[in-house]
């Protein structure tokens, strides 16, 4: 064996990944809306150890969000209908963003709008703002009346939003897709043609719950979005299918609670993973996933996380 073939940092695999121009020191981030704006979980973990942070969905104007109840537990999951409560982009920039400036942590801002123009105005504003590393375009929120899912359900509209955002920013544009479609591949293909830099898969599944005592829907908004381990098989399938069809980096998410779950997503084709609902149960999930990934790579003699991305496609 020539010395050239000996891995350079024997023992410590490379974890850095590039998500469509966004450099992450490791491939573990969080799901928008499950991790607030940073300060909420800072007492429990060192935010610097995250590959990136994805903040709660931001809209042009402040939004009060939906009526309560907004969350209900379901078997191995949660249904939420927060309805994009957020302070609006201006107060986000002045009030929430400064906290994150103190960390060595790329900030991905999740943006949502009712119209294509909303998205472009958001993209323009955020592109002029220091401390924003990338945009995650949320065209898949099931919890608002207009916009959101409406764009994500139709390949052409999804492409239109993508194209407009791309034209309004120099930042990497990650488009977050909805699983509530007949073909997530069809949407992904159009979004890729519209020059998206990366994809986030998946947002929540449209669901509901009914209170049999009051005989009314549990959620104030009636319908909500399902997340958590319950949806993992669906999320993994989405990553698998899209990876086969589209050549863009994927941030995989949906039900990840352990390193083993995360590794399934890498093998299916993800370049990075996001932890959402699992933060609620274990605020250290991201750290445990990160350590578990590193261990898996070492135990299996991989020297770079990128080696396992999509690997399961070679084995069928």
């Amino acid at each position, binding site marked *: 064996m020539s010395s050239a073939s000996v891995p350079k940092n024997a023992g410590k695999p490379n974890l850095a990944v590039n998500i469509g121009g966004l450099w992450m020191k490791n491939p573990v981030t969080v799901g928008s809306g499950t991790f607030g704006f940073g300060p*909420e979980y800072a*007492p*429990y973990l060192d935010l610097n150890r995250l590959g990136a942070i994805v903040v709660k969905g931001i809209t042009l104007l402040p939004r009060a969000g939906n009526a309560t109840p*907004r969350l209900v537990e379901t078997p191995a999951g949660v249904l939420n209908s927060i309805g994009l409560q957020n302070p609006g982009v201006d107060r986000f920039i002045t009030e929430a963003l400064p906290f994150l400036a103190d960390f060595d942590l790329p900030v991905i801002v999740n943006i949502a709008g009712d119209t294509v123009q909303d998205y472009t105005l958001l993209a323009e504003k955020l592109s002029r703002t220091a401390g924003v590393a990338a945009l995650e375009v949320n065209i898949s929120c099931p919890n608002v009346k207009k916009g959101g899912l409406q764009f994500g359900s139709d390949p052409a509209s999804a492409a239109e939003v993508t194209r407009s955002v791309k034209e309004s920013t120099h930042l990497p544009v990650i488009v977050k897709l909805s699983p509530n479609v007949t073909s997530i591949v069809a949407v992904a293909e159009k979004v890729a043609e519209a020059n998206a830099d990366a994809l986030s898969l998946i947002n929540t599944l449209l669901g509901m719950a009914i209170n049999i005592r009051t005989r009314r829907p549990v959620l104030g908004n009636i319908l909500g979005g399902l997340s958590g381990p319950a949806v993992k098989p669906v999320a993994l399938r989405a990553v698998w299918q899209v990876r086969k069809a589209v050549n863009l980096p994927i941030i995989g998410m949906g039900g990840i609670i352990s390193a083993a779950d995360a590794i399934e997503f890498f093998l299916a084709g993800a370049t990075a993973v996001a932890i959402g609902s699992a933060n609620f149960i274990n605020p250290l999930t991201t750290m445990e996933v990160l350590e578990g990934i590193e261990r898996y790579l070492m135990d299996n003699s991989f020297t770079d996380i990128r080696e396992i991305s999509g690997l399961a496609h070679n084995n069928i």
Partner: protein
Amino acid sequence: MSFLLDAEITKQERIVPGHFRLSLSSPDIVTAARPGQFLQVRCGSTLDPFLRRPISIHAVDRKKGEVVLFYRVAGRGTSLLAEKRQGNSVSLLGPLGRGFSLPEGKARVAVVSGGIGIAPIYFLLVELAMYGVSADVFLGAATAEQLFFFKEIKGFGYRVEIATDDGSAGYHGLVTDLFAESIPLSNEYAMIYGCGPGGMLRRLAEIIRSAGAPGELSLEERMGCGVGACLSCVCKTSGEGKVQYQRVCTEGPVFPANEVVWT
């Protein structure tokens, strides 16, 4: 300060059927805990139930470094919690939220508790006693059997009035009605504290408003994270002149009575 830790159970007592008092060794939490704050408790060890459950801090034993919870078996999570035994460990996140504010000086306050609302109220009463605050305590319950800790609270030296839904002890009716009848015309309370079911708190807020006294109510909402990240636990408040949603887990669970908007 707030912690994520595994705490060992030192004692699990069944007080009456369906109601348990649980002591957990956790010096860090004991040191940080304030009355009205809560913990996010992992009741099981599997994915079902999935979420943590919010349980108020009921008492602390500073000598032993133990935090005490008092809970009612309401469903799957609390049933699993009730199955745990001494020596088992439980994952806790907390203390969380904004608790009750204590009055300045040796004021006189009223404390109104309904049902399981006694859980955090007990901790409040212990602290008030420590600070020499005198309190009129109004305890409501469904039945005499569920009037918990009456003797202990009496022992703190408070005036204690009781009400039961079925009349099996004390006033026959709602604790809020008892309180409304008992409240002195010349409002002299530096603070009126309340914890209990939604309907009771709503009525109490009215009484507090007509009495013109300051009040603090501990609210409940379904929680996801417990730390302010998910925005699921909000309630409507009217602070700073405008109606807005605030997070029960972070800005609450204790809110100024006059700021809560009832929907």
